[in-house]
Each structure stands twice: as structure tokens, then as C-alpha cells.
């Protein structure tokens, strides 16, 4: 009997705790998570602090909203689950806005829109694949790029392709190259790039800005191969991930991103970190 009353009490407590109206929340402090291992979007400096495009943009956004922001590093593959579990309030990690993700979280308006591409060691048979230097615009059903994909399928037949697990880029590779290549999934892009250099894998596929950063650190031992892939195939761009119920916070961030787009902050930071303008269209 006693046990039962404890259960009832616990259930009552839980009910009270979970029905606190979220509208009453005054956002004074926001916790933002990123990977700290996805240069130049975000990286961990030698002294342990976080640097890169996103931490600097976050600083601007938080100043604009007049809230205090804490940046914490966490693992990419559990970010969305942890966000919904309440471990932090915002995901800011080059998160592409996709319909699948929109089912479980809300997104701010996009603050960047980047291309993706393949990378290979400059000395390898897979360097200079057909279409190198071009930009192809593809729709989510890959229309607009079918010919380029077919040409790449011929080139990468029998190759080992490395991708970061649970990304939009992983889906692209599985959809188009699963039957002709071996696919290896990595926890982080940095680990994949290590293996690309040692020759454990033949080609990598990722966001162009991220690849260019890793080429720099490897003294240009690797380069883009094949066309850069743009368009809506990977979603409408990268946005902040938020919990669906935090509508107010989304409005605040949308507003701040609009300001950053309008006054050229995003373009300025983009040129500084990416060397190219990733402002969404």
C-alpha cells in the first residue's frame, strides 16, 4: 500500500513538473551546442575554447537578443536527441534543414547554404574525376544531376567512400553509390580525413567548406574531385535546431539572423572563415 502512495506522489510531481507552461519562460540564458570538430564552422582551439564561423556568429546573435549564451561541445550523432531531452536549447552545427529533421525539431531560418563535394588525395586515381571545377544544382530527387552522378559512378566503381555518419551527405552517398562502392561511416569528419590521407579510403564526401579546411591542414595533399553539388538536394541550407515548443526562442533567433543577414555580418564572417560567401539565397 505504502509503495502505491509513493507512486502516486511521484506521478503527481512528474505531472506538475511537466506541465509548467513554457510561455512563462524568460530567455535570459541559452545553451548552444556544437561539435567543436567541424572546421571551419566550429573547432576547438589549442587552449580548449571554441572558435570558428558559428561561435562568432552566435556571439553576434546573442548580443543582438541581449541574452547570455553558453557554448558546449557535444557529439554530432546524438545532438538532436539530446536537444529534445533538454540537455541544451539550440543546436548550431552546420545542421542542414531537412523534412526528416523537421518532424522532430524546429529550425530557425537558414544562416548559410553551402555546396558539397568529393575529395581525394591529389596523387590518386580518383583525383580529377569528370566535372571537376563545375557546380551542379540538384533537386531532392537528384534531378538536374543524373548525368554527373552516372559519370561519377563509373569513376568511383570499386572505390571506398568515407562519410560522416547520420548526415545529409551520408544519405546522398547511400542513395547513389551503395551498389558500386564500399561505404565507411565515421563519427567525425576529422577522422575520415585522417583515413583519406593514409589511403584507408579512396574518396571522402562532405561539405565543401569543411573539406577545404582539411586540405589546408594536410598541406594540400588532397583536393576536390568531381563537380560541386548545390541546389536544394541537401535541404534549403543550414539553420539552428530548436525544440518545437520553444516558439519564442525561434522568433528571437530568426529576428537576429535576419539582422545578421541585413547588415552583412554573415557575409563578413563567411569570407573570413570560408573564403567564399555562403549567404543563403
Amino acid at each position: 500500500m505504502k509503495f502505491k502512495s509513493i507512486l502516486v506522489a511521484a506521478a503527481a510531481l512528474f505531472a506538475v513538473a511537466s506541465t509548467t507552461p513554457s510561455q512563462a519562460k524568460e530567455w535570459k540564458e541559452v545553451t548552444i551546442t556544437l561539435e567543436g570538430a567541424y572546421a571551419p564552422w566550429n573547432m576547438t582551439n589549442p587552449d580548449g575554447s571554441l572558435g570558428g564561423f558559428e561561435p562568432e556568429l552566435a556571439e553576434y546573435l546573442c548580443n543582438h537578443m541581449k541574452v547570455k549564451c553558453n557554448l558546449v561541445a557535444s557529439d554530432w550523432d546524438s545532438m538532436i536527441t539530446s536537444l529534445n531531452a533538454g540537455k541544451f536549447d539550440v543546436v548550431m552545427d552546420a545542421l542542414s534543414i531537412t523534412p526528416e529533421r523537421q518532424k522532430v525539431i524546429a529550425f530557425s531560418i537558414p544562416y548559410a547554404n553551402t555546396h558539397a563535394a568529393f575529395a581525394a588525395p591529389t596523387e590518386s586515381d580518383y583525383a580529377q574525376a569528370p566535372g571537376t571545377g563545375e557546380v551542379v544544382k540538384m533537386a531532392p530527387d537528384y534531378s538536374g544531376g543524373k548525368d554527373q552522378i552516372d559519370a561519377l559512378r563509373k569513376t568511383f566503381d570499386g572505390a571506398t567512400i568515407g562519410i560522416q555518419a547520420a548526415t545529409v551527405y551520408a544519405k546522398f552517398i547511400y542513395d547513389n553509390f551503395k551498389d558500386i562502392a564500399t561505404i565507411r561511416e565515421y563519427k567525425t569528419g576529422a577522422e575520415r580525413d585522417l583515413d583519406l590521407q593514409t589511403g584507408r579510403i579512396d574518396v571522402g564526401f562532405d561539405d565543401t567548406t569543411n573539406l577545404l579546411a582539411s586540405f589546408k591542414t594536410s598541406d594540400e595533399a588532397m583536393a576536390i574531385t568531381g563537380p560541386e553539388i548545390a541546389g536544394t538536394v541537401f535541404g534549403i541550407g543550414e539553420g539552428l535546431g530548436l525544440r518545437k515548443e520553444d516558439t519564442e526562442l525561434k522568433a528571437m533567433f530568426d529576428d537576429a539572423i535576419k539582422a545578421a543577414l541585413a547588415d552583412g555580418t554573415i557575409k563578413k564572417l563567411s569570407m573570413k572563415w570560408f573564403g567564399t560567401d555562403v549567404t543563403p539565397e
Partner: protein
Amino acid sequence: MDFAFLFSTMKDLLAATPTTIGLFSLSVFFGGLLALLIVTMRVSNNIIARNFAKGYIFVFRGSPLLIQMFLVFYGLGQFGVIRHSFVWPALREPFICAVLSLALCTAGYSAEIFRSGLRAVPPGEVEAARAAGMSGFLLLRRIIAPIALRHALPAYSTEIVLMVKSTALASLVTVWEITGVAQRLISQTYRTMEVFLCAAALYLLLNFIILQGLSLLENRLNRHHRRPTGRKPSVMNALFGARP
């Protein structure tokens, strides 16, 4: 409860189970062989061999398995010497790297477990065997090894179960075993609870089977210690009926 989802998750995880079993059985097998070699060196009279074994055990017991795995997988690949040598085709494969590091690590622990078994062999029994004219390999095979194994088995069972769970680390070097596939499913479906519950259930099942096998072995080795009455019925007997 979404049973359709649980069912499809279980199907995906079961597809990865052979990888986990492969990692586990190969690393326990090779790790066990290596442990026999290390323990032989550890109890030998040769000071160099003894100290080498001591050092080996210290290094592999004293550092995290994850770091050992990263050193084998990412570390070795950074040396051009290794990349251009005959071992590279093997070391290029993530599965082989994972087995190698798991085996190296368990060998350190197992060697110590075997040594504790050896130390439990009563000197009287060895003397008696010598008096009966046994020596060398015969003495080892008939007297020392069975007694040592009997004493080492409970601790060794624990090490084997730990190895089943250690295979989960292999997903960090791109080997997609049960845990890695579970994490991938979560990042696609965002349903942590169901997927990890399925994975945990699979590991429990694997360990249950392995532990049953080990306890059967332990029972066989200790037949002479058993009291003739009050035999505890084993799970196997309950399931399949006692043998006549």
C-alpha cells in the same frame, strides 16, 4: 509500444550481430593464445622474458582500450614505413585493427588471470606427480593445467563477458557492430529508448548463452567436488530435460 518499430530495429541489430560475435570470438581466441605465451614468460626463470611480460601486462592493463584501439587504427597508419610494408593490406581493414587491439588488450588481463590460476596449484600435487615419475609437458597437461584452469575459470568468465561488451568500441573505428548500428538507427529515428533497449537485450542474450556455456564447463571441471545429493538443476536441464 510500437511493435512494428521494435521488430524492424531488432532485425537491423540482428544483422549486425555476426560482426559482434566475430569480433568477440576472434579476439578471445587470439587473445587467449597470446595470454598463454605471456604467462609462460611471466613465470619463467629468464629475467628478460619475465620483465617483458610484466611490462606488457602493465601497459595493456594500464591504458584505456579505446586509446589502444585508436593507436592501432589511426596511429599506425601515419607511418609511411607501415603503409608501404606487407602488413598494410591487413591493417587497412578496420575489422582486423579492431580484433588486433581487442586481442592485445585481453591478453594482458587474461595472462594475469592464468597466473593466479597457476599460483593456486598446490605444490604437494606437483611433488606427488613428480614422485610418480611425471615431468615436463605430461605434468603440465595432466596435473598443473587442469587445476590452474579450474581456479582461473571464474575470473576468466568475467573477462570474457567484458570482452563481449568491449566490442562496442569497434564502432568508433568504423566497424558497424550492434552498438554502432544502434547509434546509427537513433540518429535516423531519434528514438533512443527503444533502440538501446533492443541492443541491451541482445547483449544480455549473448552473454547469457556464453555464461551458460562457461558454467557448464566449470561444472564439468569440478565434478569431483560435487556432493552426490542436492544437485542444482541447471537452466539447460529445465529447458531440455535432464539427460537420463
